[in-house]
């Protein structure tokens, strides 16, 4: 009851005309930041910090603006994933896998609406999780030492095989490539530069955004150039937009998916160092193992394959606020920026935040609810508008994609080196697509490789070189078991299913 009255106080703080206006503005800008390749939630929030300061907004108003941008960007990332096969930011990567095929089948409107609803469900559940469970969850996060984190990342890689491509060897190759790319940069455990060739821009490693925009967006442009070059009528094939909202039957089929993946995403978000990308990835791969063991529909435009990662990544966005508020530890790049904002507003996140600044905490939570509802209300009617993008002839669309990619990447780092690197990734993406190598495992390897390696080495250093520390707690053992099962299950099941299918076809020919 105490919680509810606190929440009511929060709404009383949050609901003023000024704050509602800021929420709408933030949601709108966030959606755009999320949808543009290269500009993710963390950059979106960072770009708007000066605005919040120069408007002289108080702590609650600033947080409302910035968290609206945060949630908005998490929503917006899916739009370009579905329409263009270009993820707007890292967590939206998984949405490409089924969202783009759906759009190709003329179900773009359906996919957009469904993913909007899934985003809402994920964020809504996560916000309740934040309210009810924050104190307990902090204790849960403290169970994770370096050894447990390492097991968690192994789990993510173990389930990779189930995610993309029919050819497991190519998936594995792509993941190795990603892990190799993650090695570039100064090694934090020894301070030694690796694979940097004396190039100072490579000391910090490769920025994921550069890799994503190059691999997905630019390679798309190259492929377009290759296919359309020299043709006078550089028109794409006629796109069908179809209905704008999913039929109720599809929604009903996706509901269990959304509920399950919201929980998975939320838990991944709560763990600092895991974050939204891991949340959407685990949501997708777990869901695939639950509802599509035969590998028949996922990856070919299954609505559940759109709902799962979207509910997962938005739930993770909410979950990531738990460690940020109660431990002062950011669970993702965006929460790192939000943390810096809190500090500069003279609010110290940490165990005492809920006691010292209840107005800020509950105002923020109320703002999350408001942002979420505003986003749903804003996104569903705008689906029709978004889908118009598909009607733009590619000869106009593709140059625009290239332009936005370049401006976006240059805007973050201000370095021409990153632009060259992005072009390099574009060429690499083009070659890999020709070879039918999936791109998602590359990004996953790059994203998770460093953290995985660092946690392994931390664990081993702490234990004085004793490798048994990796299975030294019940939690770690549990994670290893899930990882092994997750790795073996698709192989075993795939074999029996294939065998059964063979029997079936033989049986039918006999009949």
């Amino acid at each position, binding site marked *: 009851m105490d919680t509810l009255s606190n929440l009511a106080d929060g709404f009383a703080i949050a609901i003023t005309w000024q704050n509602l206006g800021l929420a709408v503005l933030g949601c709108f800008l966030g959606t755009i930041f999320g949808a543009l390749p290269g500009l993710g939630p963390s950059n979106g929030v960072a770009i708007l910090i000066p605005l919040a300061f120069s408007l002289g907004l108080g702590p609650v108003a600033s947080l409302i603006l910035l968290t609206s941008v945060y949630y908005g960007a998490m929503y917006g990332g899916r739009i370009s994933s579905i329409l263009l096969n270009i993820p707007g930011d890292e967590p939206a990567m998984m949405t490409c896998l089924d969202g783009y095929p759906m759009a190709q089948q003329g179900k773009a409107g359906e996919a957009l609406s469904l993913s909007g609803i899934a985003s809402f469900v994920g964020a809504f559940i996560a916000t309740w999780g934040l309210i009810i469970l924050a104190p307990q969850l902090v204790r849960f996060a403290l169970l994770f*030492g370096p050894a447990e984190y390492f097991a968690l990342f192994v789990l993510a890689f173990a389930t990779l095989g189930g995610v993309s491509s029919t050819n497991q060897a190519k998936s594995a190759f792509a993941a190795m490539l990603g892990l190799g790319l993650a090695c570039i940069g100064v090694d*934090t455990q020894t301070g030694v530069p690796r694979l940097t060739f*004396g190039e100072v821009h490579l000391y910090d490693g490769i920025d994921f955004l550069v890799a994503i925009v190059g691999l997905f967006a630019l390679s798309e442009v190259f492929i377009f150039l290759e296919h359309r070059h020299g043709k006078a009528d550089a028109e794409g094939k006629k796109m069908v937009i179809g209905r704008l909202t999913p039929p109720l039957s599809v929604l009903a089929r996706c509901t269990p998916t959304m509920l399950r993946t919201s929980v998975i995403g939320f838990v991944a978000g709560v763990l600092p160092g895991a974050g939204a990308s891991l949340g959407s990835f685990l949501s997708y791969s777990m869901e695939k193992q639950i509802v599509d063991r035969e590998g028949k529909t996922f990856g070919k435009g299954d609505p559940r394959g759109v709902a799962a990662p979207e509910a997962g990544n938005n739930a993770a966005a909410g979950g990531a606020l738990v460690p940020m508020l109660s431990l002062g530890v*950011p669970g993702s790049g965006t929460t790192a920026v939000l943390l810096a904002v809190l500090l500069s507003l003279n609010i110290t996140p940490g165990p005492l935040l809920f006691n010292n600044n209840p107005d800020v905490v509950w105002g923020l939570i109320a703002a999350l609810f408001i942002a979420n509802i505003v986003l749903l209300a804003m996104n569903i009617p705008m689906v029709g508008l978004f889908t118009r993008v598909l009607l733009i002839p590619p000869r106009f669309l593709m140059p625009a994609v290239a332009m936005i990619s370049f401006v976006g990447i240059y805007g973050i780092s201000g370095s021409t080196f990153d632009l060259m690197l992005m072009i390099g990734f574009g060429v690499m993406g083009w070659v890999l697509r020709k070879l039918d190598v999936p791109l998602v495992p590359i990004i996953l390897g790059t994203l998770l490789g460093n953290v995985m390696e660092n946690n392994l080495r931390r664990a081993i250093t702490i234990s*004085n070189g004793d490798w048994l520390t990796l299975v030294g707690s019940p939690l770690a053992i549990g994670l290893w078991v899930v990882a092994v099962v997750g790795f073996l299950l698709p192989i075993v099941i795939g074999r029996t299913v294939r065998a059964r299918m063979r029997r079936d076809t033989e049986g039918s020919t006999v009949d």
Partner: protein
Amino acid sequence: MAINSLRAALAVAALGLSAGAATAQDFTPEQPECIAPANPGGGWDFTCRQVGRTLQDLGLITATMQVVNLAGGGGGAAYAEVVNERNDDDDLIVAASTATATRLAQGAYPGNTMDEVRWIGSVGADYGVIAVAADSDIQDLTGLLDMIRDTPENVAVAGGSAVGGWDHLKVLIATSAYGIDDPRAVRYIAFDGGGEAVTQLLAGSVQAFTGDLSEAIGFVESGDIRVIAVLSPERLSGEFADFPTAREQGVDAIGANWRGFYGPGDMSDEAYNGWASMIDTLYASDEWQQIMTDNGLAPLDLQGEEFQAFVADSVAQIESISREIGIIQ
């Protein structure tokens, strides 16, 4: 809320007027620009933005300070850019901190040295702390250092910087002042930022934490961790006065993470002195003192030649420690 922000806007406007009338200087940058050598949201970014905003509020600069993020190489990309491309730009300053000095000392900006730029001034410092979990058996700094000396395999120390970075060096300054000669006795575990390091201290993965005061303060207030030493010359003021210094425990170790600026090497003397006096005026203002209090920054008021000499000392000191512990040859 609306009324509050209106009031704030009025206050800012009034402040701008009075300050604008009071100050007159020879040098005013036409297009002031501050390079933050990291992505938006980090410490350098905030140094640029807060100083830029306050300079404008005080009327010291007339145009808005443009903040450019030039990330890469832990500040090395920005350093190379300034030295190679912008060497005579009078309107440009770049945010720097002890991390910059550490990397310069260790040769981590390939081909660059600290003499290639002009060091303008500092805006404050964050003193290092060494802390343990509230329920730890370790009572004080000497207790921890004894453990490191006698049973190094039982002590792991967590910090937010890479191996060889400033958080690591702070602990090494303390151990070397205590007469522990082998730096390898200290098992330092690098985490991504001080927050993560403190969390692992709470989780029981490590036995001690080394970092800046501002990173630890939330957990000290909540009673989760205990500061066993602050690496300042004398006790800090106000609510931090309870923390014992390393010095009073017989360990002569001081470690401050300063924040400040450098400018291009061929910046004119007029511009250099102009920027130094602007930072001086900024430092003395009530607005900046408030920001320092809010952010837990300790005093470090050095501008112009004084600051240049301070950075040179700081680089030399870090170089000799790094050489001693074998990070550089």
